[in-house]
């Protein structure tokens, strides 16, 4: 979700979590970050219902631990990533426990992902995942749409044009602009260097 210039920054919203404006502030932070927390959580944990649980845990922790956030030590996004990572690791361990129980016939639900990748390995990858997700969230809706359809939906440009009812030339220019914007956004944090290592 892109943020308008006249809207309060994440850091300003964090200072409102202790007063009467808590719901408005937390709602805005939720709207800005819920997809990233959910998506990165899904990559780490590999289980949708637990990723949903993670979203709740993380945003409650944002509210409960808002006093521990210090904007002079880093951005809200970096702090939130650490909160997400920590909560995800807790849930990951809980899930590993649950998988063992399934094998004993104790539970009805099964986890979707095996435990072949260790938590450290998965978590190491999560920082890059977080930054790419944030870069995607910075795109405005038309650019985000073509990127989602092209990259995640696997559609070719003509199919995107047909699906969105947007001229083919516009789809192509939006795709090119989206990649350019992503390149600029990711270059800021040396994410591209990390991605191609």
């Amino acid at each position, binding site marked *: 979700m892109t943020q308008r210039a006249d809207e309060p920054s994440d850091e300003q919203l964090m200072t409102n979590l202790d007063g009467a404006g*808590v*719901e408005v502030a*937390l*709602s805005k932070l*939720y709207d800005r970050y*819920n*997809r*990233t927390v*959910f*998506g*990165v959580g*899904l*990559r780490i944990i590999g*289980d*949708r*219902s637990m*990723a*949903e*649980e993670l*979203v*709740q*845990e993380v*945003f*409650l922790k944002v509210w*409960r631990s808002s006093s521990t956030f210090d904007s002079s030590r880093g951005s809200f996004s970096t702090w939130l990533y650490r909160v997400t990572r920590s909560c995800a690791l807790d849930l990951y361990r809980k899930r590993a426990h649950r998988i063992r*129980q*399934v094998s004993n016939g*104790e*539970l*009805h*639900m*099964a*986890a*979707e992902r095996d435990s072949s990748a260790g938590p450290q390995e998965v978590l190491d*990858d999560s920082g*890059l*995942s977080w930054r*790419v997700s944030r870069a*995607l969230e910075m795109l405005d809706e038309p650019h985000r749409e073509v*990127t989602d*359809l*092209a*990259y*995640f*939906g696997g559609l*070719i*440009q003509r199919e*995107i044009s047909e699906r969105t009812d947007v001229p083919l*030339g516009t789809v192509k*220019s939006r*795709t*090119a602009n989206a*990649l*350019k914007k*992503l*390149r600029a956004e990711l270059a800021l944090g040396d*994410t*591209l260097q990390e*991605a*191609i290592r």
Partner: protein
Amino acid sequence: MKCAEVHPNLAAFALGGLEPEGATEIQRHLDSCSDCQSELKEHRKVNRALEAAPPPTPPPAYLREEVLSRVRAEQPSPSNREEAEESSVEAHRISQRTSRFNRFKDLRIILPSVAAAAVVAVIAVGVFFGFLREETPVATIQLIPTPHEASGLKGYWGVAEIRPQPSGNQQVELKLNNFEKPKTNSYYEMWFVSGDKRISAGSFTSVGRGETRVLLNVSPEASTYHTLLITEEHVGKHPAPSEEVALKGEVP
């Protein structure tokens, strides 16, 4: 082809988004143009970074209100906030488990080791949210396989019981019998449908044979949506709901 014609197509080319004939022409030009090769290299770096991106699937819409209603419920008075914080974290963790039927056994294992004070807090929070109450459902819906699914029927069926919650959300208790495991990289999702509008009640997997019981939550608006669907969704695919309906039911 000239650079001016190739340039607008390079991003799509990097994403594999051109028709085969167009891609061949671009490739032919690239073989002899170092400027366009450099540009393509930059696009490919972004493409590589995108591999790390999480799937563009938002969490179910009801989660937002769920978070806010829990903040409302947990907001202590300023004087006892600090004291309440630690016990509420633990209480919340355990009430989360009680909110899902498939975690009742977890709870049974954990409860004996939890301190008495935390148990009191658990019961208080649990009762507040209605999780520990055995309420009579306001609707019981038979979920039956669609004709397509019925052709390969292996004796599965389902029932959904709906109970309103104090937060305004509706709790859906699904009881599924012999529900097949989803395909690799897939999961099931439950929807409330009205016309062409859908509200997700959440997602789950199943173990196949025997009975699977799942507790889901859906936002208050779903009370006016009278068709229930269970679809099979694919991780990482386009965010629109899948058309692969496994079970369907109507709220009486």
